[in-house]
């Protein structure tokens, strides 16, 4: 399964490293990444893939002390359209 995440973080030199470590260790493959530093905040968009549920990763990222927000983006095209 592929997922997109938007993570906001306080700026620290190692903060991206922290996030990437968790992504790898919790069993997710990084497929795309974009990082911006605006004032004191870091904005990170991640695409990841894994057999594991995305909540496992998002919960662990939310738990990181420097992470101020973590949102799992809904897929743009839902698998099955419902009325």
């Amino acid at each position, binding site marked *: 399964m592929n997922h997109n995440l938007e993570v906001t973080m306080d700026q620290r*030199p190692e903060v991206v490293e922290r996030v990437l470590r968790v992504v790898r260790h919790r069993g997710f493959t990084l497929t795309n990444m974009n990082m911006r530093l605006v004032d004191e905040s870091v904005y990170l968009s991640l695409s990841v893939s894994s057999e594991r549920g995305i909540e496992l990763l998002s919960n662990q990222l939310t738990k990181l002390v420097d992470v101020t927000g973590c949102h799992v983006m809904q897929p743009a095209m839902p698998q099955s359209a419902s009325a």
Partner: protein
Amino acid sequence: MRGADAVIKVLAAHGVNTVFGYPGGAIMPIYDALYGSEVEHTLCRHEQGAGFAAVGYARASGKTGVCFATSGPGATNLITALADALLDSVPVVAITGQVSTSVIGTDAFQEIDVLGMSLSCTKHSFMVQSVDELVPTLYRAFDLAASGRPGPVLVDIPKDVQIAQLEYRAPLLAVADEPKVQDADIDAARALIAAAKKPMLYVGGGVGMAGAVEQLRRFIKATNMPSVATLKGLGAIPHGTPGYLGMLGMHGGKAANLAVQECDLLMVVGARFDDRVTGRLASFAPNAKVLHLDIDAAELGKLRQPDVAIAAELRAVLPRLEMPLDIAPWCAEVETLAAEHRWDYNHPGSLIYAPAMLRRLANKLPEDSVVSCDVGQHQMWVAQHMHFRRPEDHLSSAGLGTMGFGLPAAIGAQMARPDATVVAVSGDGSFMMNVQELTTIKRRKLPVKILLIDNQRLGMVKQWQQLFFEERYSETNLSDNPDFVALASAFEIPGRTIFAAEEVEEALTEMLTSKGPYLLHVAIDDAFNVWPLVPPGASNSDMMEEMERST
């Protein structure tokens, strides 16, 4: 004042009156500031020992443990103790010296990227970039270590920051909001409990860490719900509580595992479905709905999807779940299971049977006692056969299972609770892993009692080789052990060796009544194993039990 003086001042402001550590080049300004200060320092003889002493201190007292190490090898030696604290959620602040900021990244002498190295084995870590950050960072570190789910926090401080001048000002910390409990969640949890015919409480270390032991005991009184505990949860429920079946899991009691497999509601309190607890996860408590309470939201649904989950302070939630339950038939069934599977201490022969000895020890210990364990068969025997009045009285490396934990943790515990009787139960393999800390006992004149259970084997590994590797005993024979009593006496610690069951009672008395430290070296049969055992990959209902002695 210098940054280094500010470090000591922050410690004093947090009521830290004992620190464990080992000096070196990059942390010398901090050691200089320590000299003659109000903060007492205990010199351990290896940074791993200092780290475990801080863990033992924290676990036995409920306060935050503090340890110091220098850059490079000092910091790398601390890492195992930090990993241990992470897996057991122990509040520790580790302060490491670092080379000066101007040379960081040049492979300077004793430079290691400690911040990078710590990412996977701390709750959080900092490298202080400038002296202005120093005091706020240290305050933050203490706050983080003890709040929410506790854990180790590392603060790496470059040498130039330690000697830079600053004006000391205590920062104001924003108080973090406690997670709010929704009334709807409480209602849902109450509905689950009320509907259960066969509910079971599964109690983990989170109860003790949260200071929620009283609330848990009141909950049990109100509901009469039968209960089991994890290795770290031992002590939360007093022995003799109706329906309490002791430890569950790989080496849990038979009644505990069978009852959990049969329950229709598993109420998980401050526990996390560790694989040593659940056995094969898919068949763990297969018919049970799950109610999961934990301060760490990331644990909810991580391994088993709960029917209702509440991320909150246990102290606040448990009282709201009290209610009388109509479960008398289930309670009777649990009591029958407990009676059917009582431990049997009648071991034939004249050799010392460790479970029986530990049971005796438990009965002889004064009220204010701490038992710290190492890792192996002896650790499981302690968990199975000793009783603890509170979680703070049983220190065991649960999550990481670290050999070498016991002796330094006992040192930390004795520093935290000087009047308590502190017993370190160790194995002949584990004891050698931090044996240098005997010097710390001598230097500090600590009355730590060491019960060394010697089977001349890496017993737990030997047991697995016997059961699952066709008795191919690869590198687990320790029959070339040193003379342990002579070794202890080199550190001015008296002791003796016993071989026969009939010597146990008197030897335990001698150990417990001796004034200072004491080593009781107990020779046991290498054939003894830990039973029951849930084999790897099996369900908790498939426990192996004692088999005939092979040879």
